[in-house]
């Protein structure tokens, strides 16, 4: 066995352990997972109360509202992405571990998506139903949210890593991430609106998929660099 063969399982087992640990932590503290979901449902409930319960209007604004609410809910949960690790020192262990830091950063993003992005996608049909969005459109909405939240988890991890040690992180994180998240929002929400109006779906989905791959190849490295800078 060469040394490379020995290094290979490390590369996979480290991130795997991290994902399992974060998933366990999320299970033990269900509030961390549920609070953003409640926030999501609450924001979505604010709009019918504010603009009136007209069915056509709700159908029209539904996809956009759900997308904005999902984006904000993701931001809310991103704040604490590295916070607990930073406070109890496990972040420093990640920095000095032999496993490449980008792989660990990717694992953190994956864990974050599993505990906040995926649940958002899963509760979407319930909220979409209250907006009278048809079943086929709801399917597209879930698909765009599925791809979009992966991108947001990856993109957001860069922002979370940059602001991890800062006291005024919350508003700052939104200011950093929201402009960068604009393409995801535009393509996600617009694709659903177009489908609801009877248009094709492929273009928007292709874009969202391509953006996921762009983020997969850029974000872990940027996050790793940012973590090193924030932790000296």
């Amino acid at each position, binding site marked *: 066995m060469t040394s490379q063969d020995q290094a290979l399982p490390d590369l996979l087992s480290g991130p795997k352990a991290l994902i399992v640990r974060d998933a366990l932590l999320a299970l033990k503290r269900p509030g961390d997972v549920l609070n953003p979901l409640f926030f999501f449902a609450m924001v979505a409930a604010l709009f019918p109360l504010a603009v009136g319960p007209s069915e056509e209007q709700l159908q029209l604004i539904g996809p956009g509202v759900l997308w904005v609410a999902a984006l904000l809910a993701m931001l809310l949960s991103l704040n604490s992405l590295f916070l607990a690790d930073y406070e109890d020192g496990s972040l420093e262990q990640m920095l000095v571990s032999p496993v490449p830091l980008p792989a660990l950063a990717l694992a953190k993003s994956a864990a974050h998506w599993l505990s906040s992005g995926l649940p958002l996608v899963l509760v979407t049909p319930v909220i979409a139903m209250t907006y009278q969005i048809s079943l086929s459109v709801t399917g597209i909405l879930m698909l765009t949210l599925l791809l979009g939240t992966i991108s947001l988890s990856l993109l957001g991890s860069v922002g979370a890593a940059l602001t991890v040690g*800062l006291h005024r992180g919350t508003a700052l994180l939104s200011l950093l991430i929201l402009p960068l998240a*604009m*393409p995801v929002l*535009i393509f996600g929400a617009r694709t659903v609106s177009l489908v609801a109006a009877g248009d094709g779906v492929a273009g928007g989905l292709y874009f969202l998929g391509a953006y996921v791959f762009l983020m997969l190849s850029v974000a872990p490295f940027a996050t790793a660099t940012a973590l090193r800078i924030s932790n000296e």
Partner: protein
Amino acid sequence: MWKFVHKLASPPHFYHIAANLISWFAMPGLLLIGYGTYAGLFVAPPDYQQGDAFRIIYVHVPAAYLSMMAYMAMAISAGIGLIWRIKLAHAVAAAVAPLGAWFTFLALATGSIWGRPMWGTWWEWGDPRLTSELVLLFLYFGYMALRNAIDSTSKADRASAVLALVGAVNVPIIHFSVEWWSSLHQGPTLVRQGGPAMDTAMLYPLLAMILGFTFIFGALLLRRVRAEVLYRERRKRWVRDLILSGKGKR
């Protein structure tokens, strides 16, 4: 060549070289803007559709172009600073951000003023370029906010450099995604196949303004970088010597 670059990258040398360079940028800039303003307002004929309202392009186009150039310059110098650890490059990135934000604001303000008689509204969400300029303004704000939030200068330099680079990857995508909306904006007249679609009497003042704005931008940038360098090196000996010798007034 490399020796010259290394010398330039050292703050004291840059500080002195930049002092001489500023006037070389400012003079042509002012001359070109002077010519462009006169020719744009009095020589160029009114547009057959837009009348005299089109004349705002003599400010709007250079500002919009510089707002994007400034972001490129910021990202490139931040990248150089991050990779080769050149302090001066970080100083340039720090100095260029507020300038870029101002030019973005100018482009937005003039675009909005132009939109009032042309589209009938001050603001039009359907126009992709106006919207992507707005996003660009937010990107500048985010960059500056991150810089302000971090106390240590060297940490702020590198953290904001990461942000600028991630932003630079995203800027074309933002532009493209906003363009996906139905467009109200004029098609490109200047950079397109078959040469500019514009009368020369209108075109030359515009080119002069673009060049003049760029020169003024360079002069302002050099001035800001000088101030930034002086502030960052305030505890160094050469700055103290400079102040005590009385030459610092220049």
